[in-house]
């Protein structure tokens, strides 16, 4: 339940690079609640692969530009 996630993300930077998109806008476009976007941005929740793809697709970037995985682990 509380295993620290090694997945990091660039969602905040991507939102600002996309016309300062709000968390609510991103949530609507991904089809999740704003609280889930906040949790992902803060590294408190790792999305499923499908949700990660949907987020990357909103920003029109490859998955690994939106999400990164720490080297040397796992």
């Amino acid at each position, binding site marked *: 339940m509380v295993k*620290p996630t090694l997945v990091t993300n660039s969602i905040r930077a991507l939102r600002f690079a996309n016309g300062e998109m709000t968390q609510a806008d991103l949530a609507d476009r991904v089809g999740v609640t704003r609280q889930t976007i906040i949790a992902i941005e803060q590294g*408190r*929740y790792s999305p499923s692969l499908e949700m990660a793809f949907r987020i990357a697709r909103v920003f029109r970037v490859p998955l690994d530009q939106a999400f990164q995985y720490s080297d040397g682990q796992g």
Partner: protein
Amino acid sequence: MTFLEKSNWVVLVVAVPTLLVYVALVVPQVLGKPISEVSWVQPMLITIVGFIVANILGNVVAAASNPGEADKEDQRDREIDHLGERVGNWLIIAGSIAALALAMADADHFWIANAIFLGGLAASIVSSVTKIAAYHGPFQTW
């Protein structure tokens, strides 16, 4: 706060006073007279019905406070819900096993009913606390 998180707060806010009311109604009797003379059926029914009605009213108020959010849930909500329910189910099972053991030991109906009732109420409380903690802390199911 999502509607589902508010809903869990409602369960918690209702369940704790429910438990306290029941304890206040029954424990003084248990201490003062034989178990077979304790009037526990009515207090248990009152607290069960009160718990259900208060939960419904609380959810209506929570939904009315932000109608746009009331029907929204996503994968994280569902994962958190499953986790909380899994944790709560252990207490329901514990209460059921205790009731079974009491029945086998030919215990008074009071103890059997209370093992089930308190197991269920404890499950509601622990399940809600687990979900609320998952909403606010790191959470992942894998």
